């Protein structure tokens, strides 16, 4: 075969690979995720309206405001701080599409680090997206990563020095939203996003901030509430009530005072809000997992993680049932609702009351998809995109 013909053949094959992978990456980064606003959503604002430094950037995310019929406290729920922990984002989706506040005010963020939703772990062969079955079809979501997209924030330093503590952290965590609080106005995109969130929390006089996460089963901080010391009483109350009444174990632990950049530490230190972080189990994140597939992400079934459990290497139990996404989302919705109820018992002068959001048992019984609204049946002006 003539070299020119051979080279052209290989070149065309290479071009084919480049185009197919390029189209996949391009579409994944720009996949539109519709949010059919529930009747409880009174307005949708942009994070950039609190800090012009991120206005118009990829992280100028939506803030969904749900005003109560009666006055009360203000609670903010953050989803998508780590987008590859999808139960947090999905739980906030259920609030944005269903919740109706009777007392107090709810601010929901579905993509706290929107840049992180546009990429998957480099070299990790993660699926770019996943779909939740609903009664009207499937709704597809970007999977995302733990860190901001390097296309949006680059280069990383040799060592990340957290501002303002000066603590040395892993270099890559300069793109980790949950290592950059309280942020700074002249910092990186991730630091600016944290600063904008802090500005929103301060200006809106938020009383409670809840940051929704998931954790690998080999990580000791799992199935728990991590609380700033000012949230001790509230977190204890929520933990005890959930464990007693809802049938799932939820621990409570303190935010370490010497570990900086995390929401449960810095939001509490740099605003008047009580800051809590909820962790649900996600076997998809475990280093010992088997195939990294959409099915594994949603079912949470993994024989290799189970094997690790049999050798006593896990901090949470796992069996053949795995940790289904419905279970993980249900834990989060119940924990948020219980926080509102417990807060109200402790602060009857500043109540919070939320209806129309399914709790743990109902999410497991009907599935997350049963509570996702069909965007095709919503008026155009009542649809937002993440």
């Amino acid at each position, binding site marked *: 075969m003539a070299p020119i013909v051979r*080279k052209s053949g*290989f070149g065309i094959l290479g071009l084919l690979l480049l185009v197919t992978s*390029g189209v996949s990456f391009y579409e994944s980064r720009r996949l539109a995720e519709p949010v059919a606003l529930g009747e409880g959503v009174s307005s949708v604002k942009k994070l950039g309206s609190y800090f012009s430094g991120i206005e118009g950037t990829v992280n100028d995310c939506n803030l969904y405001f749900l005003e109560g019929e009666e006055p009360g406290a203000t609670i903010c729920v953050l989803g998508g701080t780590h987008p590859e922990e999808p139960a947090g984002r999905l739980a906030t989706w259920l609030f944005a599409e269903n919740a109706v506040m009777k007392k107090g005010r709810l601010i929901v963020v579905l993509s706290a680090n929107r840049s992180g939703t546009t990429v998957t772990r480099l070299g990790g062969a993660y699926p770019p997206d996943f779909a939740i079955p609903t009664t009207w079809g499937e709704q597809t979501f970007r999977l995302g990563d733990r860190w901001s997209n390097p296309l949006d924030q*680059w280069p990383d330093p040799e060592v990340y020095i957290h501002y303002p503590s000066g603590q040395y952290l892993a270099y890559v965590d300069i793109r980790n939203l949950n290592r950059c609080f309280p942020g700074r106005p002249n910092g990186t995109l991730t630091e600016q996003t944290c600063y904008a969130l802090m500005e929103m929390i301060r200006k809106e006089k938020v009383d409670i901030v809840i940051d929704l996460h998931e954790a690998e089963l080999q990580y000791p901080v799992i199935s728990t509430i991590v609380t700033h010391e000012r949230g001790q009483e509230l977190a204890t109350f929520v933990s005890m009530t959930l464990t007693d009444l809802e049938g799932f174990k939820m621990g409570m632990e303190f935010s370490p005072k010497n570990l900086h950049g995390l929401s449960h530490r810095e939001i509490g230190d740099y605003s008047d809000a009580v800051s809590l972080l909820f962790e649900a189990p996600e076997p998809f994140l475990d280093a010992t997992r088997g195939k990294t597939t959409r099915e594994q992400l949603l079912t949470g079934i993994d024989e290799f993680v189970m094997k690790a459990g049999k050798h006593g290497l896990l901090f949470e139990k796992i069996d053949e049932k795995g940790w289904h996404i419905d279970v993980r989302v249900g834990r989060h919705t119940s924990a948020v609702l219980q926080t509102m109820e417990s807060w109200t018992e402790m602060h009857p002068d500043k109540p919070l009351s939320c209806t129309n959001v399914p709790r743990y048992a109902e999410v497991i019984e009907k599935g997350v998809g049963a509570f996702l609204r069909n965007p095709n049946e919503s008026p155009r002006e009542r649809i937002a995109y993440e």
Partner: protein
Amino acid sequence: MDLIITIIYYLLVAYVSVLLIYNVVKTKEWEKEVLYIIVLIPFLLRLFMLK
């Protein structure tokens, strides 16, 4: 400063991409042609800011 580093980075990516294409053209071994093309793909994806 970051902008300058970024510009230099993309110039380097472009330079390595050109070198790889040059090597594809010049080499006489088909195994190396395949190797260069496979190596070239992530460079081009980064150059076009796709991943």
